[in-house]
Structure formats: structure tokens, C-alpha cells
């Protein structure tokens, strides 16, 4: 049996996760509710071997992928052209394509530290990211879908898909960098 208090503690985490993919608060809340109900119904199958969060996340992830597949292609109205052009990174490179500044090693982060702060950084960073770019990243890296499925869902070519992922990674890398160098200074 799962204690209700334990469950409640995980709600914020699940909502963040769902919101990253769905980008719609109502839809996110709805799927979190479904997840929790499913968890309560099958409470016995929670063995306690994995953490409660890991178990709930696996139910949520399954529901998100299922929804993605049932709903079919996303309807996105923003122009794809703006998102598949990487000229907004021009400032990072010199004219001949070398890094403008030295890439410094991040002093803070181990992988575990990064994954704990991941949602927080992603949430802030993705606010300024075009929708398709953020969604491509979540589908690829958070949900672990392969390129063909992501292309199909977002209705873009494989080349455009690569550019979306490149843009998302470049932006997130910068967001993490600001965080680590900022903390180093503080």
C-alpha cells in the first residue's frame, strides 16, 4: 500500500514532467491524475525495490507515449523555417567557424547533480525555446524515442529534426553553463 502523503509529495515532480512534454497545464494535470489513479489501483505491484518516484514516472512516461501515438501528428502553427535555422548561434562562433570563447569545464556538475536540477533548468530555459524545439528534445532525451518517430510526430524531415535537437542542446548547454558559472562566482 502507498501512503497518500508520499504520493502527494511526488505530484509536483510529475506535473513538471508532463508539462515539459504537453506544454498545456490542463492536459498535464489530467494525465498526472490518470497516472496517480492507475498507481493507486495497482498499488500492490509497487514492490518498493524502485523508488516511488521512479515507479510513478514509468507509469506517466507510458501514458505520455501512448497519448502521443494515439493523438498522431502535433498541430503546430509556428513557422518551421525559424526553428530550423541555427543562425541565432552565430555569436558563439567566429567567421571561420571556431568557438569565439574558450569552452570551460563545468566546475560543479556531476551527472547526478545535473539530473536533480534538470527540470528546473529545463523549465526556465524552454520558456524561450520554440515549441517544436523543446518538444523534440523531450521526446528524444527524456522519453527516449528514436528519430524516425519524432520526425513523424512533428511532421518534419530527418534533417530538420537534427537541427531542432541541435538547437535545443545548444540552448540547454548555455542554460546549464550560466547556472554553473553563476554558482561558482556566488
Amino acid at each position, binding site marked *: 500500500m502507498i501512503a497518500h502523503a508520499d504520493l502527494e509529495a511526488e505530484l509536483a*515532480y510529475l506535473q513538471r*514532467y508532463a508539462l515539459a512534454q504537453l506544454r498545456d497545464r490542463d492536459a498535464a494535470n489530467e494525465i498526472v491524475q490518470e497516472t496517480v489513479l492507475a498507481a493507486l489501483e495497482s498499488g500492490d505491484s509497487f514492490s518498493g525495490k524502485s*523508488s516511488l*518516484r*521512479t*515507479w*510513478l*514516472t*514509468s507509469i506517466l*512516461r507510458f501514458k505520455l507515449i501512448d497519448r502521443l501515438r494515439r493523438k498522431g501528428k502535433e498541430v503546430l502553427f509556428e513557422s518551421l523555417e525559424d526553428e530550423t535555422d*541555427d543562425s541565432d*548561434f552565430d555569436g558563439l*562562433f567566429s567567421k*571561420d*567557424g*571556431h*568557438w569565439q570563447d*574558450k*569552452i*570551460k*569545464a*563545468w566546475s560543479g*556538475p556531476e*551527472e*547526478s547533480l*545535473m*539530473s536533480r536540477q*534538470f*527540470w528546473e533548468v*529545463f523549465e526556465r530555459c524552454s520558456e524561450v525555446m520554440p515549441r517544436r524545439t523543446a518538444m523534440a*528534445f523531450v521526446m*528524444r*532525451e*527524456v*522519453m*527516449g524515442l528514436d*528519430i524516425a518517430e519524432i520526425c513523424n510526430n512533428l511532421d518534419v524531415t530527418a534533417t530538420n529534426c*537534427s537541427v531542432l*535537437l*541541435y538547437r535545443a*542542446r*545548444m540552448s*540547454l*548547454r548555455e542554460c*546549464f*553553463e550560466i547556472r554553473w558559472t553563476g554558482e561558482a562566482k556566488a
Partner: protein
Amino acid sequence: MKINCRQASRLISQGLDQPLNQWQYVRLRVHLWMCGNCRQFSHQLQLLQQAARKAGRGE
């Protein structure tokens, strides 16, 4: 033919999603061997990927 850092950064990202072809793979390897900035960049993208996957599993 040599590639520059910008081209290398695109290949590093692409390589996280699908195997690079031989042309791309060899040129990227040679570039990384010579370029500390791009080695650091590559390492950071790998950290980012691992962090996202862990977060995705609720770990």
C-alpha cells in the same frame, strides 16, 4: 578536408541520435583529437543527455 568547430558541434549532436557515416565520423574524430574546446563541448552534451535520461526515468 578539415571541418571547423561549428560543423563539428553539429556532428557531435547528430552522433547522439544516429550513427554518423564514415566521412562524418573520421572528420569529427580528427577534429576532436586536435580541438580541446570541442572535446569539452562533446563531454557537456553527453552530460546533458545522461541528466535528461535520468530525469526521464525519475531517478
